[in-house]
């Protein structure tokens, strides 16, 4: 007899979604979380009277939570209050120009027309193909496990249109954009979406360009901060008698003849279970928690071969006044070349880029409850390397980093930032690693390119250890709030079919 039916390591979105469905189906479930909170990357913290989001700033594909709550016999609105964001983005160029992309496609068409009349035709084609790709690529693939070639073939047969658009898998993001838009300014305004997959436009697969389209199907923010999403799922999980223990770090997955049989915590507790579900980085799960000695040689090699995804230092500022931003998300406009250079000439060389990806997020534009009266929250998110060159480390360059980001926003993008700051907190890649035990502060677990996605990403049902399942950013669907939630749904459905 095992102590529990299912043990979940980590209370991120994937772990919570999986746990809630299992608990709802009567599976005796325990979630072990090393920190004091649910949500992992998708958490909010309190600092000097402000509620700051430590990771994500918005969600796409809100319908994923509708599917989750429907499976739980509940309504999303009773647990999470999503607010629609419009305009989706506002852009500031270094010569002070501004433009926005509203949620409405026709209005965005007008913006494109003003930027580059030649690109209106390209925009129409982009919208046409984008709506098809949204159905096939994002909606259908979201609930297909995609573990084997057979899964892929069935997916292909069910979605015959995909074969016509397969080229977007084999070209890069940059080329895909060029196929639609002539003007560098328009392409640049969409280039940042490559970083939504954690890669620069040169390395990111071409299909990701359609995220610029799916944004128009709705971008949302949960009232109360991004941490309200995991809190909502946690509530439903507890209502179904699911159990969570905080401050419990799992240091070992116990295996018996290649079968997961339970876990050991840092405090020395051994707890047995029929299945173990890992919501942590797949490399850590396999190489450290199971251990190289308990894995087949090929599995060790495969895990070692994955690169961690990139890191996102997040500078959280409390402001005594709005600094004139037009939207929740403001992108400091950079060329595609700058975005590539940020990766190749800076990050890969251990240097912090000064351009290429600078996202300002001001959630208090929609949700005033996050800050004291008339005050605002602002997150400045950039891409940066975990390992710094020149013998520097993140702890020693904290102040320098904060000052340099404020300087860029003030000098290059002409926003009056410094004198409005009343609170500041920086989460460096090192902080993410310490807080969430996410190696290298990798925000999407492992990289998400064609060679490490779909059938080449660690499987939801482990191929090496029986009764071990993976959820979260380093398994199928990759990083992102909807995708990790969907991985939890997929895993729970699979476990209920195969084990209980």
């Amino acid at each position: 007899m095992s102590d529990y039916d299912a043990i979940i390591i980590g209370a991120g979105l994937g772990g919570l979604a999986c746990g809630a469905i299992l608990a709802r189906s009567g599976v005796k479930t325990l979630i072990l979380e090393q920190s004091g909170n649910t949500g992992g990357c998708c958490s909010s913290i309190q600092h000097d009277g402000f509620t700051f989001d430590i990771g994500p700033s918005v969600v796409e594909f809100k319908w994923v939570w509708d599917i989750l709550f429907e499976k739980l016999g509940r309504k999303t609105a009773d647990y999470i209050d999503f607010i629609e964001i419009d305009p989706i983005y506002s852009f500031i160029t270094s010569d002070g120009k501004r433009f926005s992309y509203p949620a409405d496609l026709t209005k965005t068409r007008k913006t494109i027309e003003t930027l580059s009349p030649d690109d209106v035709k390209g925009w129409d084609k982009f919208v046409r193909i984008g709506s098809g790709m949204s159905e096939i690529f994002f909606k259908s693939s979201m609930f297909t496990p995609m573990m084997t070639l057979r899964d892929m073939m069935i997916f292909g047969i069910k979605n015959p249109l995909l074969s016509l658009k397969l080229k977007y898998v084999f070209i890069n993001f940059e080329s895909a954009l060029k196929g639609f838009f002539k003007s560098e300014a328009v392409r640049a305004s969409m280039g940042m979406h490559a970083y939504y997959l954690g890669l620069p436009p040169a390395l990111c697969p071409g299909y990701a360009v359609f995220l610029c389209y799916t944004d128009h199907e709705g971008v949302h923010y949960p009232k109360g901060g991004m941490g309200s999403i995991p809190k909502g799922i946690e509530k439903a999980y507890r209502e179904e008698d699911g159990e969570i223990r905080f401050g419990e770090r799992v240091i070992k997955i116990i295996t018996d003849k290649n079968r997961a049989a339970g876990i050991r915590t840092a405090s020395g507790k051994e707890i047995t279970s029929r299945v173990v579900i890992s919501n942590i980085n797949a490399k850590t799960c396999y190489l450290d928690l199971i251990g190289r000695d308990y894995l087949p040689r090929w599995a060790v090699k495969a895990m070692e071969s994955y690169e961690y995804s990139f890191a996102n230092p997040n500078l959280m500022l409390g402001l005594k006044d709005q600094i004139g931003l037009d939207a929740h998300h403001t992108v400091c406009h950079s060329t595609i070349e700058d975005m590539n250079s940020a990766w190749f000439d800076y990050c890969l060389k251990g240097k912090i880029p000064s351009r290429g990806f600078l996202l300002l997020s001001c959630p208090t534009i929609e949700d005033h409850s996050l800050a004291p009266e008339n005050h605002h929250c602002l997150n400045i998110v950039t891409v940066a390397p975990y390992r710094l060159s020149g013998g520097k480390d993140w702890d020693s360059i904290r102040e320098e980093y904060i000052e340099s980001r404020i300087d860029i926003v003030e000098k290059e993008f002409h926003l009056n930032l410094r004198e409005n700051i009343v609170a500041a907190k920086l989460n460096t890649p090192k902080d993410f690693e310490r807080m969430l035990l996410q190696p290298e502060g990798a925000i999407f677990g492992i990289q998400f390119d064609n060679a490490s996605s779909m059938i080449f990403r660690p499987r939801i049902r482990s191929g090496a250890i029986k009764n071990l399942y993976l959820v979260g950013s380093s398994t199928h669907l990759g990083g992102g709030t909807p995708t990790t939630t969907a991985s939890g749904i997929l895993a729970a459905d699979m476990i209920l079919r195969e084990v209980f």
Partner: protein
Amino acid sequence: MVKKLIPIILIAGTAFLVMKYVKAPESKKRFIKHLVVQIPYLPGRYYA
């Protein structure tokens, strides 16, 4: 006859791909190189 042709086709095909790669813009080269260096790991990744 067919057996004799296979190596020729393979060599010609490889030469064609190499030529295309050499002529490709820097961005495409980076994309291809990034994936090609990972090919040896794909079988292991597939089963993990």
